[in-house]
């Protein structure tokens, strides 16, 4: 029935499943940020500490279904935890699950987990969030529910696969505020493979920087929380130790010999990776990789070196880890589950004291705000000119001094419904300026009556009086943005024969603003040379590249590629094929008007006729031909037409407005609509990937 289909759609989108607690909108204003800051400073005055127990568990379940009791993992402690945060990875490994199909595994594991929560207490689910195979569920004891502000519960997910589309790796997070303490849980599955720790570091940085709780305005970051728990299959391995040594040390419990070689512990606290996070001492055997169903190390031909892939990290004051271990008896996966229990000092508010402090802070903020309002002194507030005559200029001077405490922008502004700041016979110079504190500015006021105004003045249709309105603002923030081909339009790019940075600014402005390319007279490129260079590069070097368009590039290389395209140096594109592929997608995404213009968007969804404007059509034809070429080598590059259709559908066809308002996140109808549009976009592109383009 309808509800079922909505649920399954939500699950497919991996955003949430069966919302158990409603979520409201709660924007946070700049002022509220200050209030929070000052309230935090004085928190001790109005809060009492209540120690609560938070259980964090993580398990890479290798696509298996729950087939054994979970109490060994979830009921390990005698007392029931107050909060459970449970992270799963590789929940669903089915082929291409990440793009098209829904997951029944999600339902199975949610159910299994519920059955094995500690019997000593009653729990309610706060929220769960899933990104393909990465699932995070947070439960809380029912007795705490009244102290969890429903408006402040939020989730986010960040895919770290290519262009954030793939989502087979990434991080999901849930945040909540319990009493007066904000909690954030992140479950992540970082890049695999022994040598890829730099890639894992980048995945961490991406998740850390891109996770935004958009329920808040401005959105909250992970780091704006009192207590943060980062769990998951972080995939860090043991380097520079032979497999036999690792197994020997592991079996003898000599973890101290292995820990210095653990890629994560050796970086923790020494680099920007997981800055500020702590981990309890590891006193358990590596949790990866076992022969499924056993406690025996991986005997497959790949011979993985055992590693502590599965970890629990935490950050914040008042967290005391009580235990941290793995659960060896659970054998359904090739990983063992891990859990940690923490005693956390949750701050509970005393309402009366709270109100008093709150009012004091409001008063203080008003005072600060009012004191820092810009203030200027004017030498004169009224100018009177006697006997002004035709074409006889008269002038006077207005002295403005900034007597406030901050820099100020002063600007003469138009009065309501007026088209100019003053009447034509009057002129003020300058009409806008920035003044530092104590700075003084002379403003010239000129009167000059000439033929245009004289008639009206003679006939008394106009009089020689006017009011100048001087507005004061704070100071604008400016930066110098270097023009880039990324974000330039196709029409502009095909006119540029050299790299964009070589153009002087007036020429660039002219090109960018002159959409009427037929009148420029210059030679036009069929497709922008930047697109050509990237496509050509992939064509020459990457046709048979494995996982083309599926494996992400490196940010640093993408930046080098951008520089190369914008400056023309070096001559060949730097970086790996994967970075070039991701740059191409980024380039297409950054086009101000997508390859298929937005005016044709809905027409394209409905039909496959060509509605494309000339220059966009060239680019579209060219790229489709390239994609068809790629598909000829699908055995090598593992591309398939469905995948490319879905991925390029998203960048070729962008709707005139964002598909759905992010605030409608929880609206199932909007999601359903978005889902259907995604499918149509893929179907549209599919047509061009399977047939020759024919004008």
């Amino acid at each position, binding site marked *: 029935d309808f509800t079922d289909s909505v649920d399954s759609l939500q699950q497919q989108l991996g955003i949430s499943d069966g919302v158990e607690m409603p979520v409201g909108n709660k924007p946070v*204003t700049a002022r509220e940020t200050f209030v929070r800051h000052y309230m935090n400073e004085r928190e001790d005055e109005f809060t009492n500490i209540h120690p609560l127990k938070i259980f964090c568990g993580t398990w890479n379940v290798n696509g298996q279904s729950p087939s054994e009791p979970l109490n060994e993992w979830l009921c390990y402690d005698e007392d029931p935890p107050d909060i459970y945060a449970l992270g799963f990875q590789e929940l669903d490994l089915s082929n291409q699950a990440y793009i098209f199909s829904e997951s029944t595994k999600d339902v199975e594991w949610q159910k299994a987990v519920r059955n094995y929560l500690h019997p000593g207490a009653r729990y309610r689910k706060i929220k769960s969030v899933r990104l393909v195979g990465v699932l995070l569920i947070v439960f809380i004891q029912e007795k705490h529910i009244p102290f969890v502000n429903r408006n402040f519960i939020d989730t986010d997910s960040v895919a770290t696969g290519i262009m954030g589309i793939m989502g087979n790796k990434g991080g999901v997070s849930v945040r909540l505020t319990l009493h007066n303490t904000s909690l954030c849980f992140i479950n992540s599955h970082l890049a695999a493979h022994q040598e890829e720790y730099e890639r894992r570091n980048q995945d961490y940085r991406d998740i850390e920087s891109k996770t935004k709780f958009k329920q808040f305005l401005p959105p909250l970051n992970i780091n704006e929380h009192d207590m943060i728990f980062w769990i998951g299959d972080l995939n860090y391995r043991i380097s520079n130790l032979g497999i036999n040594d690792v197994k020997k040390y592991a079996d003898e419990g000599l973890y101290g010999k292995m820990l210095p070689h653990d890629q994560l512990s050796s970086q923790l606290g020494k680099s920007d990776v997981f800055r500020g996070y702590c981990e309890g001492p590891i006193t358990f055997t590596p949790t990866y990789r076992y022969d499924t169903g056993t406690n025996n190390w991986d005997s497959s031909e790949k011979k993985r070196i055992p590693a502590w892939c599965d970890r629990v990290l935490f950050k914040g004051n008042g967290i005391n880890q009580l235990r941290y271990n793995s659960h060896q008896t659970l054998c359904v996966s090739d990983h063992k589950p891990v859990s940690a229990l923490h005693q956390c000092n949750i701050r509970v508010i005393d309402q009366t004291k709270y109100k008093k402090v709150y009012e004091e802070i409001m008063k203080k903020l008003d005072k600060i705000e009012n004191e820092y309002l810009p203030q200027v002194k004017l030498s004169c507030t009224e*100018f*009177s000119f006697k006997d002004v005559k035709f074409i006889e200029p008269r002038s006077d001077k207005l002295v403005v001094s900034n007597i406030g405490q901050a820099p100020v922008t002063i600007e003469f502004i138009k009065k309501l419904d007026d088209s100019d700041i003053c009447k034509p016979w009057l002129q003020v110079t300058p009409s806008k300026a920035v003044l530092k504190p104590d700075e003084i500015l002379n403003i010239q*006021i000129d009167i000059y009556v000439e033929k245009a105004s004289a008639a009206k003045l003679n006939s008394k249709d106009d009089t020689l009086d006017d009011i100048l309105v001087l507005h004061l603002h704070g100071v604008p923030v400016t930066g110098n943005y270097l023009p880039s081909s990324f974000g330039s339009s196709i029409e502009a790019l095909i006119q540029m024969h050299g790299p964009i940075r070589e153009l002087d600014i007036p020429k660039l402005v002219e090109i960018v603003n002159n959409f009427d390319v037929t009148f420029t007279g210059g030679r036009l490129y069929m497709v922008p040379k930047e697109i050509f260079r990237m496509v050509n590069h992939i064509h020459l070097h990457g046709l048979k590249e494995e996982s083309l368009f599926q494996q992400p590039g490196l940010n640093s290389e993408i930046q080098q590629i951008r520089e190369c395209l914008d400056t023309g140096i070096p001559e060949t594109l730097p970086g790996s094929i994967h970075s070039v592929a991701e740059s191409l997608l980024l380039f297409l995404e950054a086009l101000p008007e997508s390859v298929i213009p937005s005016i044709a968007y809905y027409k394209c969804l409905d039909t496959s006729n060509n509605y494309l404007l000339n220059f966009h059509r060239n680019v579209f034809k060219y790229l489709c031909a390239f994609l068809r070429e790629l598909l000829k080598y699908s055995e090598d590059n593992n591309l398939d037409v469905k995948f490319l259709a879905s991925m390029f559908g998203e960048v070729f066809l962008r709707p005139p407005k964002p598909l759905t308002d992010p605030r409608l996140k929880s609206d199932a109808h909007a999601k359903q609509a978005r889902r259907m549009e995604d499918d149509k976009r893929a179907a549209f592109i599919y047509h061009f990937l399977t047939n020759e383009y024919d004008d």
Partner: protein
Amino acid sequence: MSMRDVKLCLLGDSGVGKSSLVMRFVTDSFKPALESTIGASFMTKTVEVDGNTYKFQIWDTAGQEKYRALAPMYYRGAAAAIIAYDVTRESSFKSVKSWVQELRHQGHPNIVLAIAGNKCDLEDLREVRLKDAEDYAKQIDALFCETSALTAVNVADIFTKICKKLPSEDFSSSRVGSTVNLRKKRDVKKEKKCCGGSPS
């Protein structure tokens, strides 16, 4: 706690005590001889009423006749307006009526109107009867208080009354839309004074 920004505009004849009312409300102080306001001046004040936080952005306009044409710049988009008169000056009460007319035509249709009869500490010099002003306010569905910026009588009250009368549905809609609104207001917030020079 939910926070709501309330743009409020003070209107009324020159010398009725608009700036003094703002000063009493914002800093709880009084100066006997304030300079005449040029153009308009801006201040903020946050209050809590019934568990909600209201942040007033107060535009205090100049009462002098020569600035009258500028008033729409400040009352357009205002959620509330206080029209002040001086209980010791009958002519200032007459002006209230013309302000009401103008706001009804040009202001926001849901604008909350409040009338403040200031200087009520000067009972001996009174020219406007309390009853007359009360009746008039009731007739036009405006809030009404006699106030004294000098003694602080009813100054905070009139703002509290305004908070309570603000259309409540606005609360949710202003929250949803506040991404846009707040950014706009943040620019406006920093402006304090406007001046006019009128060559004649």
